């Protein structure tokens, strides 16, 4: 019984943590784009594309759909156009403009797969915001 309870608590904690990071991610993306809606219009070039963002340390991932000049966090997809993976701290550092994305990539702290042209477009578009 004790083991069962411990497992249950641990599972609930993981679920809450994932839910919380999901909410934080949605809010961060919303304000990130809202801050400069003019530059966010560049996202229309990649409308409909789906990025998988992998958080290696959390063993978790999110799917981001680019739609109507903003990002939508979606649950599941049939096809991913590109995948970007790294530790949570790396992504937070990027959003807070503490890290240079190329620097992280050159040092293998970010990995990218799939359509590299698309990832480059995303990187450069976010830099305008």
């Amino acid at each position, binding site marked *: 019984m004790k083991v069962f309870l411990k497992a249950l608590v641990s599972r609930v904690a993981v679920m809450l943590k994932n839910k919380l990071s999901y909410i934080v991610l949605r809010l961060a993306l919303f304000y990130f784009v809202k801050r400069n809606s003019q530059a966010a219009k*560049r996202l229309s*070039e990649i409308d409909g594309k789906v990025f998988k963002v992998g958080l290696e340390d959390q063993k978790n991932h999110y799917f981001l759909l680019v739609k109507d000049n903003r990002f939508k966090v979606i649950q599941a997809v049939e096809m991913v156009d590109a995948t970007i993976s790294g530790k949570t701290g790396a992504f937070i550092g990027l959003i807070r403009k*503490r890290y240079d994305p190329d620097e992280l990539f050159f040092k293998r702290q970010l990995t990218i*797969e799939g359509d*590299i*042209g698309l990832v480059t477009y995303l990187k*450069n578009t976010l*830099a*305008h915001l």
Partner: protein
Amino acid sequence: MSRVELCAPAGNLPSLKEAINKGADAVYLGFNNDTNLRNFPGLNFTSKETAKAIMFAHRRGKKVYIAINSYPQTDQLEQSYKDIDHACSLRADALIMSDLGLLDYTSKKHPSMRLHLSVQAGASSAQSIIFYQKTFNVKRVVLPRVMSIEKIAKINEETDCEFEVFGFGLLCINYEGRCHLSSYLTGESINTYGACGSPRFVKFEENGENLKVMLGGTCLNKYPKNASIAYPTPCKGYYHNLEKEGFEYAFQNPQSLNVLEILPSLIESGADAIKIEGRQRSQVYVGKAVSSFRQAIDSHYKDSESYRVPKEGNAELESLFEGSSFTCGCYVEE
């Protein structure tokens, strides 16, 4: 003698503002098309952003140079002419150009526009520089990264043209304006399409043990786990040499240029401007690189005798470099 100008790159408006706020005297940028040599997806300035950038810089007494430095084919000429006219109407402080036809067009149609000769023109002798001065009224030449400090000083004695030298950033194989290597793998050359190793031809394949880097279907390198990597261009490929029965960097070991160590002698050679490479890099890169160079240049002018490489600034630069290590390049070893 006027102080050396610190010229910073910008691929977007936040980077331009960061460069100016951190102490750049001038910023160079390009329009978001293939008329300049950093034509990466999503990078560079729209017309409105360019106007905003120029206004921001001019209000702070800083300059903006616009690079229109590709070598257009006949069907690309109209776009180049349009961009030249537009850059002039926006009151950019100078245009950075390399193509003879475009230089001719600009010097005739916009005689008051200041012209800088791009590094892509590869002018590396006094005779060549004087030709561009006399023919197109070029005011400044960006020198190719193939020359020693002694040669730069000699050119300075032989001409009265301003010149700009690279101080920091990724090196290429120093065959500027003539390199078509990437076109053999992708069908697109930097000089006509504005990017060597365009990202749409790049593939990264991670298999747990190593990272395989492909360009246009050709494997350029296999990096072991956690090894630092460089952006994939054919000149940085790690190729199999059948003669030597081993792999080697056949063209160039990927290294970044950093002149902080030799900054005083580079300035004393007569350089009018020090240029930081990297319009494709982020606001963070621009901020750190400009701060480091601003500090070093100011320290040199304060007391040249006691100049030391600023430790903190150099560490910041080290965090940004691409490839395996730093080098002073051909400035000290041709």
